């Protein structure tokens, strides 16, 4: 029994070893069987197919057959099929590895599983092609090359780099650490690109599916799906200390934005899927009938980018990204150093690229508030940018705003100019304040006391300047705010005034300051009108009216340093409907917006005086008013 088992085992082991040896021998012996010329033809077909017939292997390239069904080309060169033809791009690689199919090879046919380019270096040159990308150049694609009877094998790039040539003569990598696979499941099933690369020290994963790549340059384009996923920041690789600090600065800014987006209940914008009609034309790329999905958020609309100069779109996008990066970084550095008025503002980076993005969605959940309809539109045209935001919500109110930024006519005012208008209607302040409060880090001690009420506001202003400080100084506009049926926090005005009526003394050695009574102050209506000019906000008139009290205020707020100078009067009425004034308490607001000082003035107890409008000091009104 034991003997039979042992012999069986021995037989099996011997058998397996023998067949393994045969397999290895066949594989080792096969290299001489791989015919050089058919492999070259196949590889060329492959390259041809994916580059839209733009390139083929140079005649001098040596193809070396390798064991295990591989053909390798060391230091390959690529040339255009017709000599002297203009090229949009240049490719080099350390090596090309072609994996061949086993069975066809046994039958004497060469078929390629995939072509692997090791460390390819792709340089995009100035040209009329929109993205300058191989295979999807949009023009002059020989249909035959794309429509072979059998699908061409995949092309795989390993550890590649894409750079822009002839752009600023710099050799900055556009994309680095690229791992990419181009595949066509079948001739009829379109094209799939799976790529991962590093841009701005973040790993980005991109998957693109196109149903009919050939239709890409047609008017309608091809149905497709693009999904982009951002990986975490990579550890900074060297660089001097200053550049590390700068990277850190922007990373911190990004992290804070990210945290704010999350706190607002919006999905993190690090995974985006866009479905739509993709089209590519000279100098333009567009996604029409787009559905953008970010987390739970779905928006419909269209996106298009076009280059308004002769430079390829990819180069324009890089210029824009770099320009925005530099502009944000320069501003962020000044702000970090506590010098925000010096933070430069430039818009020149908007030149050269036109953007048209409009998206809208319905029933969007933002921080437990349902926005019934929201729309966003962002356009950049001729160096002028315009952002429109609108939202409408049953429970939350309506909001509409637009900001326009452009560089003024060069001969007159070359500095950036801005215009803003925003309207809010019936916005519930409580939830709004709650959202803002939730988006900031919680206080160490106790809850924030948040104001309540229904807010309507209208803001209009224009400004221009090269720095934040200049812009703030140049603001001209107006704000008018109405707040109804709410309450203010920080103290109970009526109880405080009543204590004065009852003979409370203060501002003396003995009794000390007027410490307001704890509580909220409910009000019926607050109306405020503010004029913005000369770097200051002039509160022309602000009235707060409630049961038993009314408050009037006027004054000035310097926008740059937040210094305030406001005078007002708080009046206690005998009864809600009465004209009888019980106490007038003048007061002042000084200090800064960050650290306001509210100072009580000399109270007047005047029982006999008839009621007039709450007094509003006039001396802070602008001249001529």
């Amino acid at each position: 029994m034991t003997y039979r088992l042992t012999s069986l085992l021995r037989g099996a082991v011997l058998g397996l070893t023998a067949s393994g040896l045969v397999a290895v021998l066949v594989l080792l012996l096969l290299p001489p069987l791989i015919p050089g010329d058919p492999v070259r033809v196949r590889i060329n077909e492959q390259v041809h197919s994916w580059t839209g017939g733009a390139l083929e292997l140079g005649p001098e390239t040596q193809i070396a057959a390798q064991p295990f069904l591989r053909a390798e080309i060391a230091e390959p060169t690529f040339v255009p099929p017709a000599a002297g033809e203009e090229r949009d791009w240049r490719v080099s690689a350390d090596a090309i590895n072609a994996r061949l199919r086993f069975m066809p090879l046994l039958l004497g046919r060469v078929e390629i599983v995939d072509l692997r380019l090791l460390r390819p270096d792709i340089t995009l040159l100035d040209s009329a092609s929109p993205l300058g990308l191989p295979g999807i150049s949009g023009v002059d694609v020989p249909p035959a090359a794309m429509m072979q009877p059998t699908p061409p094998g995949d092309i795989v790039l390993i550890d590649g780099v894409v750079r822009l040539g002839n752009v600023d003569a710099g050799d900055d990598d556009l994309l680095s650490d690229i791992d990419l696979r181009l595949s066509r499941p079948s001739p009829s099933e379109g094209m799939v690109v799976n790529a991962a690369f590093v841009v701005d020290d973040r790993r980005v994963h991109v998957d693109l599916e196109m149903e009919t790549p050939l239709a890409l340059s047609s008017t309608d384009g091809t149905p497709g799906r693009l999904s982009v996923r951002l990986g975490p920041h990579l550890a900074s690789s060297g660089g001097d200390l200053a550049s590390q600090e700068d990277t850190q600065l922007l990373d911190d800014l990004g992290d804070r934005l990210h945290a704010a987006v999350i706190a607002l209940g919006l999905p993190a914008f690090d995974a985006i899927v866009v479905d739509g009609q993709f089209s590519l034309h000279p100098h333009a790329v567009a996604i029409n009938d787009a559905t953008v999905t970010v987390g739970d958020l779905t928006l419909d609309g269209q996106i298009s980018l076009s280059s308004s100069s002769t430079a390829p779109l990819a180069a324009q996008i890089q210029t824009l990204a770099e320009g925005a990066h530099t502009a944000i970084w320069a501003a962020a550095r000044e702000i970090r150093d506590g010098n925000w008025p010096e933070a430069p503002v430039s818009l020149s980076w908007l030149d050269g690229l036109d953007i048209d993005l409009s998206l809208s969605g319905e029933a969007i959940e933002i921080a437990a508030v349902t926005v019934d309809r929201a729309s966003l539109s962002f356009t950049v045209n001729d160096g002028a940018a315009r952002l429109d935001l609108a939202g409408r919500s049953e429970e939350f109110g309506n909001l509409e705003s637009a900001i326009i930024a452009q560089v003024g006519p060069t001969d007159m005012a070359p500095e950036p100019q801005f215009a803003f208008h925003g309207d809010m209607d019936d916005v519930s302040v409580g939830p709004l304040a709650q959202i803002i409060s939730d988006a900031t880090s919680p206080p160490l001690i106790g809850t924030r006391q948040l104001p309540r009420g229904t807010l309507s506001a209208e803001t209009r202003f224009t400004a221009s300047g090269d720095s934040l400080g200049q812009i703030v100084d140049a603001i001209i506009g107006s704000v008018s705010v109405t707040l109804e049926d709410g309450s203010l926090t920080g103290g109970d005005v009526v109880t405080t005034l009543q204590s004065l009526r009852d003979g409370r003394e203060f501002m003396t050695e003995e009794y000390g300051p007027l410490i307001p009574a704890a509580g909220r102050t409910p009000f019926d209506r607050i109306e405020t009108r503010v004029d913005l000019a000369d770097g200051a906000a002039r509160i022309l008139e602000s009235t707060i009216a409630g049961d038993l009290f009314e408050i009037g205020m006027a004054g000035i707020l310097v926008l740059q340093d937040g210094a305030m100078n406001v005078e007002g009067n708080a009046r206690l009425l005998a009864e809600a409907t009465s004209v009888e004034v019980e106490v007038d308490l003048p007061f002042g607001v000084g200090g800064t917006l960050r650290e306001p000082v509210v100072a009580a003035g000399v109270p007047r107890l005047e029982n006999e005086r008839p009621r007039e409008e709450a007094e509003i000091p006039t001396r802070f009104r602008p001249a001529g008013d």
Partner: protein
Amino acid sequence: MSNAAFFRVGSDARSPSIAVGILLFWMVYYGWCLFPGIGGMLNAGDSAKFQTLGHTSILVHGPGYPFILMLGSLVRSLALPVEPWWAMTFAMAAVPGAIANALAFLITRRLTGSVVFGLASATLLGSAGLMAVQSTEAEVYPLALAFVFGIVFLMLRFIETKRSGYFVAACGLYALSFGNHLMMVMLAPVGLWVMVAHAQILLRPRILGAIALLLCLGATQYLYLFWVTHQPTTAYSEYMPLPPTAGEVVNYIAGTYFGDLYGAGLASTQTMEVLIGTFSYAHPGVSIPVMAVGLSLFVAGWRQRGRDWAWYGVALVLGTGLAFTPFMLWYGAYDIRAFHLPVLGPLLVGTISAIGWWAAKRPHPRLWVSGALLIFGLVRTVQMAGDLTERTAPFADLVPVLETVIPQSPVEDPLVSMTYFMRMATLYHELQGETPMPATYRVAWRIHDEVERREQVGGIVIPTDGEQALRWIEHQRPDLHCEVVDIEQPERASWPAYGFLCSPPETTSPITQSE
């Protein structure tokens, strides 16, 4: 189950050394995370004033805080090689805060028989928002809490052992605690309740005599205060004249100054909302559930009380917190939050002890509940250190600002009217001779005597106040007319200021002359 199973007298020999470890840890932690300068985020004025005691003997606001004055004397006599503000904050807040945490461990350890619950209790108290902030700023409430927990611990020992010596010691500590804060009077009903419940043991002439004697000894702290008011070295008194009459001292101690706020808290639900806010932000999202669960388990344990002294122990801790609550709701200051620690501390430690008491009979939940609380407490401790060390000193550049502003005054020896916060921060520097002189620095409501005394009143208001100071001067001196004098300051000044000159209308002001 037998009585003995729950009879957690068995004193763990390691407890004292663990308590010392906790004490040292929190002293280092609070010292490390100390507010980085003069002032504080809770009440910058009060903190700056107490910090001034680190270098000079002064009288603070009523009721006088004689215990803190003694602590100040101690700090000054040690002449430590650190900044006076640091030494004073550490002595009056960080050390008492650490003591309170160590006592929280001892209390919970004794009530639950579990070292892990004790550690969780100390960690969750020490890292609770209000506790961590107050233990790193010059505030009197960590010391109040240390006294409260000291008294509670001695009372627990008394309830547990029925040895009257513990009760007498608790009364002695209680008497001493009045030197820190008169708020401690709220604790009296708790002491009386324990006394009534143990009348047979305590109602003896010898014990009552000892308690009376200790209370008298505690009251002598206010004699010390009286002595300080008569010392020539006392450089400053906030509002009581020096040296005062006996009547003035009594008024000062009684705190009539804040009389307007008594009862004002009941006018609205505000003080209640703020108190609940303090509870929930002790550990956002966690402290309220822990308190709710602890209170429920405590109430549910009502039936077992007869068999277990520890239930009464938990009742004593929670009752202590409850005893202070009426004061929190009744006193109507908008910054009432500062007072909340003697409610928050016992409530947190009491409810954690209640959970531990419930778990003591259930070995399985006991392990993971205590472990989960402890791990959460440790995470919060690390997180809180980050938050605490992010605070910045608001008055770091006060002296340079004064050096810019004061010389621009329209008169010699200007009257400088300031907010309370700024005045107290200035006091710290003024008594060290670091502020520009001559100048009379005053808080806005204490300029009367100067306004009365001067023929022509001129000076600086910093920060600006919507020019109300001028209205008060004109109100007090109808014979004067005030004019604003612009003050040059660097761009984006932290504290905008203006100069002023109040002179009889008929005389021409020097400004007009110079033009």
